């Protein structure tokens, strides 16, 4: 059946290769704009307080994810906090700005009720403990992204 039509000159084409390269322009929107400008210009991390449940939220959204209330009250957070949990990433991946191994962590900043994601520096993986105190080390050159903080170091 298929054999009869199979080209005699060579094997069938087993696969086809291709690349997708899609460019995006992600809108910061009004909230991320304010949040990242505070980081870039003032080295400040801002949360938003929910007037109903009182939670101080991250990342900044127009609403409280928990009780669906509109939120608009900006609150300055400490750039210091406690390590919630962490993992040592050994796996390389495409587009990764930090070369593995590195320590990826969830940090509960003082004054916040939601975790802040970042990486740890100035510490060996074996010395990291959940609950330890860490503080942001700010980058000299800041552009309005989470990389405006280089990493968090132990206090």
């Amino acid at each position, binding site marked *: 059946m*298929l054999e009869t039509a199979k080209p005699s000159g060579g094997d069938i*084409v087993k696969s*086809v*290769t*291709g690349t997708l*390269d899609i*460019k995006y322009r992600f809108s*910061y929107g009004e909230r*991320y704009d304010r949040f990242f*400008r505070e980081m870039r210009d003032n080295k400040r991390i801002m949360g938003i307080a929910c007037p109903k449940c009182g939670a101080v939220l991250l990342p900044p959204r127009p609403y409280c994810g928990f009780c669906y209330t509109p939120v608009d009250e900006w609150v300055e957070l400490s750039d210091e906090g406690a390590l919630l949990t962490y993992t040592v990433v050994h796996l390389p991946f495409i587009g990764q700005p930090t070369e593995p191994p590195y320590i990826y962590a969830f940090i509960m900043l003082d004054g916040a009720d939601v975790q802040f994601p970042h990486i740890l520096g100035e510490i060996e993986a074996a010395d990291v403990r959940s609950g330890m105190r860490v503080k942001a080390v700010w980058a000299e050159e800041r552009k309005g992204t989470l990389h405006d903080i280089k990493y968090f170091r132990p206090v």
Partner: protein
Amino acid sequence: MALKPPELTYMEGESRCDYNWTTGEVVGTFLAALRDHGKMLAGVCESCGQVAVPPTSYCESCGSEVSDLREVGPRGVVMSWARVADDFEGAPAEAPFRYVLVRPAGADTELLHVAPDDDGIRIGATVRPEFRPREQRGGAITDIRWFVPDGAESEGS
């Protein structure tokens, strides 16, 4: 500590990923026939008999197995066309060119391909495929360079 301009409006981003798609036997055989023999193979549905080009291993019309491949064309009839005036990244030909739906002789479906921007490309016109030279073919639908009006001299020959 006022916020300074510039405002942050857009973050530039991209999604870039490489793929290696398995073709399967029917698609792989069709592509190899283009490459090795400069021939178009169609799939014959074992149930409804539809002759489909390019072929899939299942009949898009009735869902049955397609296990028999047969040569169709090379000449075919233009069933529709559309003219592209402006170049774009990844275009299959230099603009202006035309997209065509060609029904090769012996087939019941149409193959999507391109054609020169030539008034001879119109609905009902007979066209024939112009294959790329053997050494430029890689086992892809683009091994057919395009379809030209039957009887026309191929460019560069």
